[in-house]
């Protein structure tokens, strides 16, 4: 993609800049309907058009300064943030960096079409070179967007991972002074950390004396999982709360015995209900039958 010579290149770039300035409104209108802008600026189309204009202005600036291939061109400075936010929005919507790059590439055709129309209406000196230059410039824009979206993607993954870990370990208040954590899925080191922190915070908030760790949803219990459980129990104990591990299925019980895992003095129960019954009894709370509140079906 070489233009004839340096001077011509500069002229061409300036011409391109001029075109972008002149056709700002029209180009913005066309781009506003492209997925990249339409799905991001959902409040109103005007908002999308304004955003497009900002991008067109930036491109015009880059063109006028004859830095068509320079990703670091100062002209991009004004829209880098906006492009970053747009890329982040698309990333959150589940699009990969290459998909987003594809969407930016989709902006090229409307721009080229508009430029061709202009050349038909008023013959320009370097029409071919201009079209080429626009193609190059759009390619650079694609690179700029890719740069911002890759780093946004990395940040998002990190945040989502943390959110997932937190959401997956809710601590539930079963009764005054009794909390329960239903553990679901494999209990690895990271999950164990989050469980410990959530559980201990809940013990403080709820002034809990009993914490039930239900492992019904934990597929396998090996010595590592047992170790994580024991750490959690030990930490809760240091804060004056007694832990009960419930959800010991027969297969799990057999595995624990078979592996020779010593759960020490941890209290265990088959089911969550059994654990709750134990905790209530320990506190001297008796659940008794009274008159049923609900009406009988007519």
């Amino acid at each position, binding site marked *: 993609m070489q233009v004839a010579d340096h001077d011509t290149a500069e002229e061409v770039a300036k011409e391109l800049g001029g075109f972008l300035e002149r056709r700002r409104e029209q180009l913005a209108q066309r781009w506003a309907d492209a997925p990249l802008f339409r799905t991001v600026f959902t409040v109103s189309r005007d908002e999308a058009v304004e955003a497009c204009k900002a991008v067109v202005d930036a491109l015009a600036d880059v063109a006028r300064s004859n830095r068509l291939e320079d990703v670091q061109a100062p002209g991009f400075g004004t829209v880098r943030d906006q492009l970053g936010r747009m890329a982040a929005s698309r990333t959150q919507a589940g699009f990969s960096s290459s998909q987003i790059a594809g969407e930016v590439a989709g902006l090229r055709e409307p721009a080229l079409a508009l430029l061709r129309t202009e050349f038909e209406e008023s013959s320009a000196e370097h029409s071919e070179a201009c079209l080429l230059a626009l193609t190059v410039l759009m390619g650079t824009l694609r690179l700029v967007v890719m740069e911002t979206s890759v780093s946004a993607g990395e940040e998002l993954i*990190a*945040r989502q*991972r*943390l959110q997932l*870990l937190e959401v997956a370990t809710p601590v539930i208040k079963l009764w005054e002074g009794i909390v329960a954590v239903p553990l679901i899925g494999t209990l*690895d*080191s*990271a999950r164990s*950390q*989050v469980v410990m*922190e959530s559980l201990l915070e809940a013990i403080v908030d709820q002034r809990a004396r009993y914490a039930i760790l239900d492992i019904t949803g934990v597929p396998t219990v090996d010595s*590592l999982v047992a*170790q994580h459980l024991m*750490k959690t129990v030990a930490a809760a104990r240091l804060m004056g709360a007694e832990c009960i591990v419930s959800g010991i299925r027969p297969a799990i019980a057999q595995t624990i015995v078979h592996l020779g895992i010593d759960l020490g003095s941890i209290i265990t129960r088959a089911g969550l209900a059994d654990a709750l019954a134990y905790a209530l009894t320990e506190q001297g709370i008796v659940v008794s039958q009274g008159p049923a509140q609900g009406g009988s079906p007519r």
Partner: protein
Amino acid sequence: MHAPPAPTARLPIASDADLAWVRQQVRRAAADLGFGLVQQTKLVTAASELARNTLVHGGGGHVEMTVLEEGACRGLRLSFVDTGPGIRDVELAMTDGYTTGGGLGMGLSGAKRLVQEFALDSRPGEGTNVTVTDWVSGVPSPRTGAP
């Protein structure tokens, strides 16, 4: 190409009072870097263990604190140095429950569990250098290897 960053601070370890000062300074540095509370607590506790080791077993020494920046990651490196007798059997010293005097023998192996990176360099008669590093993590990172 990066030259190793210069230490941010060098704190003497020669007395009880110095141990408390080291704890305070490490806590401050960790908080400034944005470490979460649990990570801060672990790092300061590890620093307390290692500083005490330096004092009690190493005959005193110092700790060098270095703020690290690698890309978007920020970290803190603590290097405990003494010119004491050194550790004869490093492997033995690193096993749980091992102690040569007082304490519960958790010093080295316990401290290792509290931090992300741990390096021990010791030669009998030449002193000991224990360097630990922690990186600020927004995400709890699964620790590899035996806990």
